[in-house]
């Protein structure tokens, strides 16, 4: 920082600072090396499977052909889940932070936080036992009335265990974390900006669109990315709910659905051996890369609006 002159003595280092510096440096190193370790493991174990020829593995396909439907299914399910969860969590968070009376807002906040503590197996069971059967008539209706859209081309699944059902379960699972983050960010909107909007004659909703949402934009993106990360990697709920058949299809309601990488690993791993394990780990590496790419993209998106972010 400062330019040192020869007459200046060395800066005094307090033991507390040194300890703090040590602890925080170690933490940083641990997390980075863990990440590096995971990447190295995935690469080392996955590459033999990724380079294996079609007749060496059980699936009878090259790695690229094997993984492509899984990548599609992973992204497709996560994107649908996010499309459902984002507006709902922003709405709930706004309700808690700016609309509901305090007496109501706090219990709702607690309930939402509680949802995050429910294990994914429970969501999966609920998805199979309750959601899929009760949502199935809707799929029939969608096929009949909106069948001209490729998403609802049908034929409607008889069990309701479709990618849309899985995405709904995923959406409910990512809702708490997204809502909690959005709520915190909305609550941090500077009072000055809210008052500026109100003093110009903004209604409550206009105040929210003028002062709260723009200020929270980068935080909403971060919340969505965290949620996307969870949706991409969620295993149990998808593995339980989805009846997968390894196709690439945007059809949301039929009984032939793409699987996701994580669910496929969980379902195939117990019966896999040798090179097949390697193939599965290779798909894990692909998932790792996707998650990484999504995060980089999100950072870039936030950084593009830095000047107008309210952080300066």
């Amino acid at each position, binding site marked *: 920082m400062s330019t040192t002159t020869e007459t200046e003595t060395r800066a005094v280092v307090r033991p507390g600072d040194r300890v703090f510096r040590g602890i925080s440096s170690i933490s940083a190193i641990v997390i980075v090396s863990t990440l590096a370790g995971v990447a190295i493991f995935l690469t080392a174990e996955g590459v033999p499977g990724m380079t294996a020829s079609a007749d060496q593995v059980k699936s009878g396909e090259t790695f690229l052909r094997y993984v492509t439907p899984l990548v599609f299914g992973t992204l497709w399910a996560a994107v649908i889940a996010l499309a459902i969860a984002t507006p709902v969590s922003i709405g709930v968070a706004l309700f808690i932070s700016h609309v509901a009376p*305090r007496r109501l807002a706090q219990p709702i906040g607690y309930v939402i936080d509680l949802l995050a503590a429910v294990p994914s197996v429970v969501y999966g069971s609920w998805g199979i036992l309750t959601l899929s059967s009760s949502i199935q008539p809707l799929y029939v209706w969608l096929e009949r009335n909106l069948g001209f859209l490729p998403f609802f081309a049908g034929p409607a699944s008889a069990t309701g265990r479709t990618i849309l059902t899985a995405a709904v379960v995923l959406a409910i699972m990512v809702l708490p974390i997204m809502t909690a983050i959005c709520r915190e960010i909305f609550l941090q909107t*500077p009072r*000055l*900006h*809210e*008052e*500026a*909007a*109100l*003093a*110009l*004659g*903004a*209604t409550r909703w*206009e105040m929210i669109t*003028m*002062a709260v949402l*723009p*200020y929270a*934009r980068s935080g909403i993106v971060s919340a969505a990315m965290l949620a996307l990360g969870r949706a991409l990697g969620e295993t149990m709920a998808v593995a339980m709910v989805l009846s997968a058949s390894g196709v690439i299809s945007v059809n949301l309601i039929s009984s032939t659905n793409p699987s996701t990488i994580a669910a496929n690993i969980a379902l195939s791993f117990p019966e896999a051996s040798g090179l097949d394990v390697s193939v599965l780990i290779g798909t894990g590496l692909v998932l790792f890369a996707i998650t990484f790419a999504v995060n980089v993209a999100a950072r870039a998106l936030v950084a593009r*609006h830095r*000047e*107008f*972010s*309210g*952080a*300066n």
Partner: protein
Amino acid sequence: MATSIDVSDLNIYYDDFLAVEGVNISIPARAVTAFIGPSGCGKSTFLRSLNRMHEAIRGARVEGKVLVDGEDLYGRGIDPVDVRRRIGMVFQRPNPFPTMSIAQNVLAGRRLNGERLKKAEADAVVEQALRRAGLWAEVKDRLDRPGSSLSGGQQQRLCIARAIAVEPDVLLMDEPCSALDPISTSVIEDLIHELKAEYTIVIVTHNMQQAARVSDQTAFFNLAGVGRPGRLVELGPTEKMFANPDDPATEAYIQGRFG
């Protein structure tokens, strides 16, 4: 556009706490009225009750009447949103919207009124408001830059431009210069002099010289006692208030003997 405000027997509460008691004041059109008084005496609270901004705080309510051109602001069926569109406000700390450009900031209030402005009209509104706020020359080449890229004094003038772009009748200023340096302060004071030709201006200030410089009439607020509500002690033409006030408390405050 000549709007006067008549306040009678106004009590302001936060929940059950009486913050300001029994204010009777008449604020003339096209003049500057200054509110002075020690911190916590309720002058800002009273100012905010003039455009119902204090309602943004939970539990705040009033009793009494605030007549703007004969119409009661707190009458049945009066929407605070409409009140605030007619009675603009400038705050203690400059608060341009950080996510908007300079031009968007000026237009923020206009867009609220549901107006669809054509590009040329919008440009005209921006230029006129910024000219009236004395900021045009400094920012005309960077209207698309964020409002937060300006200096504090410029930001405050941007906020004034934003407030007058909606063409209110009254402009309330809550210590508009307290976060600014003396040069920016003097620029804003000159601006207040110019704006009073068109607007009714009410300004809260802790700066006695400022009250003396900019206002035509001065109101002195004080607490009735420790833990008692604030009240209006004395109201009069600024010259008289500073030279020869009626109330000894006013004289003591103005001469800096307390507060």
